[in-house]
């Protein structure tokens, strides 16, 4: 959909993505909870926009606080960010790992329906249980009737099947090279962003490490190793969505914001298996629709944030975007074309594998990174945005290619 009036995003903020890999993470010690992350990310935005009195409403995207944290009724935490949000409109949205994207979509719709400044916040705190139980919770992103037949690590199992199908169709060796390069890019980018979960990673050759780690179905899944997977993360991200009036209210020039050029949200039937395991059908549909509605071609996009919950998902998204033909996404990635200095930089702050994947926060984190890149705020992880390719895109996925948000941005 193309917005019928100008819509902008500004003031993004990310907490640290906390979990294994961060030096300060200690699973045996008590850690900040859900409310801490909501408050930190929310206040991080409010500081940039003149405070809570400038905000009309808020949306919290979250996947499974009800199980990870035994907490529901998340809108009630908006006023916990700042008492200035008390008694204002607030809601929460859920679409599994696509919840953050849904928060953005909902805030855009708030603005299109009359709000001037809407706070979009995504959060997840997942390190409350061991990974083997966390896998149960995350499996809620699939159809529960398929849980019994699924793998102990349900989602790694789902995407292992996709990787296996890809190996069979296009060759395992090529695919593993692409997947390992994907991992290496993620680590190299994450090392430049101090909030990233892999910021402290010092591996001299992440590509070789990943390539040499043969997947082992007895201990984990058949076709992915643990480095092919995003980690378990605690974190939150937030940003405000504004109308032109809203930007004026918070005293920000539109050139400091990104404009939402198009936004698409589409869902695929959760009870149906993918028709082709080697294609992300819903992502292909939503991303290309967003690009078409923006009236551009993919080659006018300077950088993308894509949903690499698993390295294979990253490669399939490259193919879905048409950057490479089916079966050649792995070569495209292996050739370094998606690296930060490549022809199409993807996930410049590390993506889900490098920055982290606090599931409900991820979609918002993607928007924050694009805002930073297009407005020259990305600091150490800034990539060059060529004037001939001024657009950015975020693609956020819930479940196995089920709940998709795709948004095209340009500097305002």
């Amino acid at each position, binding site marked *: 959909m193309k917005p019928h009036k100008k819509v902008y995003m500004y003031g993004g903020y990310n907490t640290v993505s906390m979990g294994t890999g961060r030096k300060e993470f200690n699973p045996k010690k008590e850690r900040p909870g859900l409310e801490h992350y909501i408050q930190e990310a929310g206040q991080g935005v409010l500081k940039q926009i003149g405070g809570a009195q400038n905000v009309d409403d808020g949306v919290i995207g979250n996947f499974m606080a009800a199980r990870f944290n035994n907490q529901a009724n998340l809108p009630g935490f908006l006023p916990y960010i700042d008492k200035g949000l008390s008694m204002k409109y607030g809601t929460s949205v859920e679409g599994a790992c696509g919840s953050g994207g849904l928060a953005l979509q909902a805030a855009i719709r708030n603005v299109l329906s009359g709000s001037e400044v809407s706070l979009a916040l995504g959060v997840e705190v997942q390190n409350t249980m*061991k990974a*083997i*139980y966390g*896998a*149960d919770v995350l*499996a809620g992103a699939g159809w*529960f009737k398929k*849980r*019994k037949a699924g*793998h*102990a*690590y349900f989602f790694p199992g789902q995407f292992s099947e996709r990787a296996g199908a890809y190996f069979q169709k296009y060759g395992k060796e090529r695919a593993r090279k692409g997947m390992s390069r994907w991992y290496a890019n993620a680590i190299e980018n994450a090392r430049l962003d101090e909030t990233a979960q892999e910021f402290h990673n010092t591996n001299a050759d992440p590509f070789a490490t990943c390539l040499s780690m043969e997947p082992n179905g*007895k*201990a*984990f899944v058949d076709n992915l190793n643990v480095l092919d997977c995003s980690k378990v993360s605690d974190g939150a991200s937030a940003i405000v969505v504004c109308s032109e009036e809203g930007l004026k209210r918070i005293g920000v020039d539109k050139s400091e914001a990104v404009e939402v050029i198009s936004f698409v949200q589409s869902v695929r039937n959760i009870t149906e298996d993918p028709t082709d395991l080697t294609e992300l059908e819903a992502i292909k549909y939503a991303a290309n629709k967003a690009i078409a509605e923006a009236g551009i071609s993919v080659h006018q996009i300077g950088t993308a944030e894509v949903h690499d919950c698993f390295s294979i998902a990253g490669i399939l998204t490259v193919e879905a975007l048409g950057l490479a033909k089916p079966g050649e996404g792995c070569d495209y990635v292996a050739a370094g074309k998606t690296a930060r200095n490549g022809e199409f930089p993807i996930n410049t702050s590390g993506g889900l594998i490098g920055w982290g994947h606090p599931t409900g926060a991820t979609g918002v984190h993607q928007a924050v990174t694009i805002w930073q890149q297009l407005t020259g705020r990305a600091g150490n992880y800034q990539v060059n945005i060529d004037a001939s390719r001024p657009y950015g895109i975020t693609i956020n996925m819930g479940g196995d290619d089920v709940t998709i948000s795709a948004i095209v941005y340009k500097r305002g």
Partner: protein
Amino acid sequence: MKYEERLQNVTVLGAAGKMGSGILLLTAIEMADLSLRPENKGKTFVLNAVDVSDEALHGLMGYLRTQVQKIAEKKAVQLRAFYADRADLIENFDIIDEYIFDVLNIVRPVNALEVAYNSHLIFEAIKEDPALKVKIFSQIKNNSKTEPWFFTNTSSIPITELDEKAQLDGKVIGFHFYNPPAVQKLVEVIRSKHTTNEVYEFALQYAKNLRKVVVPSHDFAGFIGNGHFMRDALYGIKEAQRLEPQMGYVKAIYAINKLTQDFLIRPMGIFQLVDYVGVEVCSYIMSVMNPYLKNEDLHADLLDTMIDQKILGGQFSSGAQKDGFLKYEKGRPVAIWDIYSKTYVNIDSFSAEVDTLLGAMPSKMQAWKSINFSKSKDAQLAEIFAELLTMNTLGAELAKKYNQRSNEIGKALVNDGVAASDQDVNTVMLTGFYHAYGPINNYL
């Protein structure tokens, strides 16, 4: 009788002890996994956990529950296959819970020996007392309806002696786990003169299913593990006593403990290891072994003194270390017991002085923790010890002698036929004692 039939009714004697609880855990898991195989559905598996102490049995069940949960979490992938036909068990939570129940449901904690009369297999992990073991084995053998096989965890008593005195007709084998059984990979398997092939083959199969490394030991008191450890400990005690006139008792104990840990790159110093095993246990094992040894007196008055002073080491049921030669805070030695003043003397108050006396360590020296898991372990050890060999400090001299003695002990175990090869001696020390290198080496 097939493998799984033998494991349908098992008794662990001394089940709540340090070794018994680990043996019980591993056996319970093995039995539960057998019971979950499709061909065994509907069969009953019973594991009697026999111990004299009700209180300890109470604690045992808590230990089991925690440990089984950890094991279940690690093998959740496999468990989902085990329970594939259970429509009611969907999530990992459900499956792990059910597995914990299924394992614990096999275990019968009890303080009456009579339950063993129905067992096909008896694991014995009671006190290291030959007469007591013989008495209990005889009692079970004479009352049993099942002609059970006896697996003894003795670390020092000759199996043939137990076999003959209890008239077990070769239906017995030494199956010596290392502490803690759930973690240590090593099992020493010792046949008596009469142990049948059937018993031996079952023992190997059982060890394999438990993913243990088996080292066969000849049936000689102390076998390989204690054959080395007890002599090594006695040498450490004698070395400390030799240094005593020069530096005083407390500092000498500290020096030898530091020497064995830091200079010889072992996981713990020799006196810490004695504490870990227990002062009384060490003394007792020596006294069990000693009558069988020729031209050798395996006895330390110092251990008797410690026992008289009730400074015993060993472990709390939580696994925490009790104070012995050394006093521990959060698992780290902080003081040394002075047998003369009968107080602990803080290590901080004298360690710098003794460290200076021992002298510098080789420049590339690293702690056991970083060497033992290193891919280039052998090359690193060779380099460190080559440098140590050129050094003339007190520490270097003591370390060279200590390693030579350890080497001699190992060689003697092979020469006396206790171990079949140098390799077997080294495997025991590497896997049972977590040493970074075997005693039979050319390093020093």
